[in-house]
């Protein structure tokens, strides 16, 4: 009787495990790949990946209200001549200047509309700084909480504070092309404005080499390369 009971337990348990571990055993089909990706990964990429021409910046709104994130990057923009060729100095070093780009990402209060990302190209001009706030300064508004969620009606500003921008100038390994940088705003009554800002890094090299589903960012990169105009 005990042996029979044990078998009745072991066999279904093993069968269930084999059926719902498609991320590992490639037996997908029982659950959606999106769900599987949240549990075991391997269905879709979460970073552009090593060797990709993008850095992905994601913002996550955990405040329970619409929020607009102000994301700024600083890149090295190479000087070009009238024909579009990069200008080099006497030592053969490309002449460049820092250039900042700011985008405003509007998020809603409920998932999955509380999560929004953007891809910044980093192949032709490297990105050195990624942070919140238009000027990447501690007193800049980093997030506007409230408003109408579309950016047309702004909410109340939350300062950048101690959330320093990620920089490659002091340490090139802080982030590289192919990584995902994540900024999150959550409610924290111990923080100024009752909102705490956090940053995360998802390294591209930690992602699997292959995916069950489509390789999102590779497809996007291939598409952009196919769109190069004749005069570019």
């Amino acid at each position: 009787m005990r042996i029979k009971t044990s078998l009745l337990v072991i066999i279904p348990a093993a069968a269930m495990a084999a059926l719902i571990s498609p991320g590992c055993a490639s037996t997908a089909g029982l659950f959606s790949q999106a769900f599987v990706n949240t549990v075991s990964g391997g269905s879709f990429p979460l970073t552009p990946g090593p060797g990709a021409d993008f850095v992905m910046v994601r913002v996550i709104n955990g405040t329970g209200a619409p929020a607009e994130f102000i994301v700024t990057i600083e890149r090295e923009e190479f000087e070009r001549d009238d024909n579009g060729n990069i200008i080099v100095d006497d030592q053969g070093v490309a002449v460049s200047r820092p250039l900042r780009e700011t985008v405003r990402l509007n998020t809603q209060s409920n998932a999955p509309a509380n999560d929004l990302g953007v891809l910044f190209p980093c192949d032709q001009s490297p990105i050195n700084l990624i942070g919140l706030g238009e000027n990447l300064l501690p007193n800049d508004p980093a997030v506007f909480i409230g408003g109408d969620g579309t950016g047309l009606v702004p909410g109340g500003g939350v300062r950048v504070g101690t959330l320093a921008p990620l920089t490659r100038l002091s340490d090139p390994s802080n982030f590289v092309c192919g990584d995902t940088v994540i900024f999150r705003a959550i409610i924290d009554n111990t923080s100024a404005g009752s909102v705490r800002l956090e940053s995360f890094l998802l390294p591209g090299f930690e992602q699997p080499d292959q995916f069950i589903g489509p390789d999102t960012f590779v497809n996007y990169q291939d598409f952009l390369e196919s769109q190069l105009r004749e005069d570019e």
Partner: protein
Amino acid sequence: MQVGESHFVGRPNHSNRCRKACRAAFALFALFWLGSCDALNPAFVSLIAPGEANTFTTLDPAPGHLVIAFVNNAEVDEQLISYLEGPGGLSLTDAERRAVRPRIRARVQVTFLNGEQTQFELVDGTQNLIDQRFAAQSVPDLNQNDLDNAVVLCNVSRVELQLNTLEVFIPTQLEIWELVDVISGQGVTTSSFRLRGQTPPAFRQLQMDTVDEDGNTILLRNIGIRDVPAPVIGPNCGTVVTITMNGTLAVPFLTGPGVEGNNPSYDRDDPQSEASIGGRFEFIVSQL
């Protein structure tokens, strides 16, 4: 019956045995599942936030992403470029002239499977494409940074570019003329254009052609009824939705008796002339 020997009366009580069996099943299930995975979800992240030592926190892994990309393949009419480089005072290098693109902005609405919605504004095009006599500071929208892509979480049920938010930046002042009859002292009536007003450089909404009930075009505007961006229904997780815009930014240059200079201008009594402001465009929406 000996000591220690159980003796049941009636039906045996299986509840305890079931609970134990369920617990064992769950434990074995977890063991098999973890054991069959050679790596935990690599998307689990822990990071020491810069400036905050010894603080670890984690973030739930994402289900996957959908990339929504806008590709601006539109061009600028040669006559307009010549005007901007001439009287407009714009200086373009050869490389810049080849790569110049009209400044476009539009809102995209994303609807998720659970009914939630989000919106973002796409902006793309050459930022300094403007008549230099109108300082860029007077048009703050022109300096808005580009956003030509967005990444949303799965699962998405609908992606739609909202046509009523689609705008192109008209980089020059437009003169508004009106054809009037002028009677001379000798009683001779001649027709001549009179300047009635001017509109500064600004974003202008692109409009669809006006058609009758049979689909025949009555008034040609900016976008044909078959060239509007169609919504994408049920895009698969992990794919890329691309919205490609082709066409040419153009403005009318009115000629006629009384019209002075060769400036961007139109006859306000000619609907076709006014409807052509902005040029002609088409959209191709695809899923990769």
